[in-house]
């Protein structure tokens, strides 16, 4: 079970958090302009990487804030945590 360093609350148990899937997938600003394929790309397609993955987490049983995490899925090492809207650290 991870220890996650919430950018607003500090280190907490994983059981206080909820994972929210891949990060940095922005909702299209003009969905009506998109073809079915382009919309499907946004809607359904997610990466499932063995290795470095950028993902969203929510401190659901704490401050309820969303933030981003860089995690190595092969060994669960958390490489970085940063707030929504902040730039991801370079690999």
């Amino acid at each position, binding site marked *: *079970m*991870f*220890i996650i360093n919430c950018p607003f609350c500090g280190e907490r148990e994983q059981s206080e958090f*909820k994972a*929210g899937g891949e990060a940095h997938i*922005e*909702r*299209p600003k*003009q*969905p*009506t302009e*998109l073809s*079915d394929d382009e*919309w*499907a790309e946004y*809607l359904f397609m997610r990466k499932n990487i063995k290795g470095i993955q950028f993902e*969203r987490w*929510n401190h*659901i049983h704490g401050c*309820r*804030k*969303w933030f981003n995490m860089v995690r190595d899925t092969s*060994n*669960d090492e958390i490489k970085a945590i940063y707030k*929504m*809207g902040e730039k991801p650290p370079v690999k």
Partner: protein
Amino acid sequence: MSKNLRVKTSKFIDETYRVSFKFNGSKYFGYKGDTLASALLANDIHLVGRSFKYHRPRGIMTSGSEEPNAIVQLHNNSERTEPNVRATEVEIYEGLEASSQNCWPSVNFDIGGINNLLSPLLPAGFYYKTFMWPASFWEKYEYFIRKSAGLGKSPTKADPDIYEHEYIHCDVLIVGAGISGIMAAKTAAKNGLKTLLVDEKPNLGGSTVYQNSEHFKINNQNSGSWLEKEINEIKKIDNLDIRIRTSVAAFHGYNFLLARENLTDHLPIEQRKNKTRQKLLKIRAKKVITATGSLERPLIFDNNDRPGILLSSAIKRYADLFGVACGEKNIFLTNNDSAYETAISLIQKGIKVEAIVDNREEIESKLLYEIEKNNVKVYKGFTIVNTNGYKKINKVSLMKLSKDGQKVIGSKIDLSCDCLGVSGGWTPAVHLFTQSGGKLKFREEDQVFIPNKYSSEQISIGACNGDLTLEDIIENTPKYLKEFLNIKKTDYDNVEVFSDENKSKRNIWLLPSDKILGKTKSFVDYQNDATAKDIKLALREGFRSIEHVKRYTTTGMGTDQGKLGNMHALGIISETAGTKMGEHGTTTFRPPYTPLTFGTIVGRNVGEYFDIFRKTPMHEWHLKNKAEFENVGQWKRAWYYPKNNENMFEAVQRESKAARESVGILDASTLGKIDIQGTDASEFLNRVYTNAWSKLAVGKCRYGLMLNEDGMVYDDGVTTRLGENHYIMTTTTGGAANVLGKLEDYLQTEWPELDVYLTSVTDHFATISVCGPNSKKIISNVIPDLDLSDENFPHMSFKNTKIGKINCRVMRISFTGEHSYEINIQANYANSVWEKCMEVGKDFNITPYGTETMHLLRAEKGFIIVGQDTDATMTPIDLQMDWIVSKKKYDFIGKRSLYRSDTIKDDRKQLVGLLTDNPNEILEEGAQIVADVNKSPIEMLGHVTSSYYSPNLKKSIALGVVRGGKNMIGKKLIIPMENKTINVTVTDSVFLDKENKRLNA
């Protein structure tokens, strides 16, 4: 009368404290400090169980948690009964009752033993191969297989014991209190670190603490005495927490470990009252030191499983720690020095050692010289090819090993014995290390896997790290500790160690025999009866992955998880396949290391605490008025209120009629309520609901439908504009938490520029819904100051008002199609308002109704329930709710998905009404809907989602989803049931008051 094999007083046993216990119904005696295994052995009992598949007689094999054979049922038929308990771990207490498992009628005469004779017919995969065909017969086979298989019996009564969970945070956790664990604990604690030391046994010191021989010295003292002083010292250290009888079950990532602490299992049952039986320790350690030692390996030869065959180390432990001889004529089979150490220990106590059979040809060892001095014959370069004795070993046959160890040569020598100790060397106990994600490497010279790469702040020390001799442990442990704990010195930097043990070993995974392999029973996994032959068969049949061989042969899949035999399985696979050992890796060691009881896992979360429930402020009133309850999410909701022995159907019919004819009252407090404020609140609602919100006037209510981004209906509810920048949203009861989460997600991540604040107020306000033609009379009585005229207070509007001095919000909204009001009031005042409504409603036969009547009433009006009439595949268009989807809005959540190629298809399942040809026939919810029963296969068009008998329409009504249903109005369809088919007509989904006249009645 059985023999007494207690040979010598041991300081670890209290011989002044005699304990009586029962095994298989007979009474025996042991001493305080005995395990069930040591007490049985002292009574000359080896045969304790039958093997799983062949029902072969099996005896005690080890002295610890790795025991595969001696697993027993405790307190059979009592509420405290427990199956699959290792006799080697149970400490005896007055009144203990244990019995053998997997045998009938008794362990001495077991009918299932016939399987042993049939064993040529029961190879690996037998069950898979035989009972595959015909597939439809599986259910019949399964019944008999399950009956003849199975180990112990699970308890049928509630567990009377108390269990707890404890969270522990420490600087250093040390798992295992053998010599290296003790050294680590003292070093960590003396350096001021908050230290926790756990060990599964009731005493500290591992196997060194009873090592009492001139051949093993530390600082010129016998190693056992030296360690005992260390133990006495660490017991005095304040910042060192020592937990005995504590077995680490799991080592998870980020140094999170689960351990089970046994607190009362060693006490007589009458002394356990009101005490916690076991604790689940949830340990978060900054650093973990694993010092779990090693497990002795058995050897694989024909008939290596008879009672009376034990690990050499176990024989030593029984003699040294418990003062018990496992036999009176002992023989050892070994490939290393360990068996000599045991033999010397036995000789010291006057126990006879007949011979030692050593696979090694040339042995340079001081231990060997001492054995030979005692006139014990040592057969060098020999192996055992067979054993005899059905219920206990009585003879072994030896032959000379060829130079390459692949064959046996010469003639057979028979020796009689009553106990055989085997030693195949040592396997580091790396289970926890690998559970934590560590990677192993293979050490060629002595054929062991040892830790290589760690996944967290941890190290392995001592035997589990491959330091298998006393010398290596004493020399290496201080070095590892200094580096890991970042300290300059330890108390052990200048300790002198002396040992006569020689490290040489002749490792042969499968010992050769004079018989062909097919005629031998060389067990690799004792508990699951997997033999060397089975493993080779699996390879011949094409299995290569160790994980596949494991599952096919069931090697390592028993309750002991193959702690003894897994290495041999790997060895035999690599030898047969001609590959190198390290290449195959190992099977995955999974938690728990030893089995956990369910009680420990759930702790205090039992009974009413198993799954907590939420109550509305009127809960007590519902109880008093005999409501039946329904679980909705975590809520208990009043379901219906039976009167005078009514059944559910009768009660719901009465409640439904009353609500339409006069007035009904519903506790709607469980609906989710989200307070929305901010200058962008209207814009926010525009984006999350399918319909438009900007023009909703203050004081008005509007129904909204919320979609997922994929266009499917997610939730619905009425939202009210309380002020210019202030709304209150209601959600479904079950969806409340998820809706709030979803809205927060969009606000924080997609639209952070919006000035909107969300607060859940579900628990703060209670909601009382009063509905029916007489509802107005009730409200005017409860809130006399409120002008209820249609002009002042029309349908879909709200008023801020007061009841007495208490502020409340009244909405005129309706989920039943009747003229109705919802009073929202601070939760702690709600019950009195409810009771007031009941009181003033007496003259109007005010009738409390539950969720079932609510569902019936809304179905009459064709209103959907999200989650009942919808699943995650229904768009608003499928629900024929096109009217609520704004065409003008540029965007809202899910809009783009409503015209994907899939969502615009005509033949999607669409919501329609269904009327049975026979108006008294009520459809079953979930029933399939078809058009043609003669077609094969029958094409399923959809299913019934809601179905009721409507007392107001006096006929059965139903809602259902039907492929292309929108264009089927008037069409006849069929509901096939088990014994009949029901004819229905597709209709519009609104059955009652299509003109909405009743809303203003």
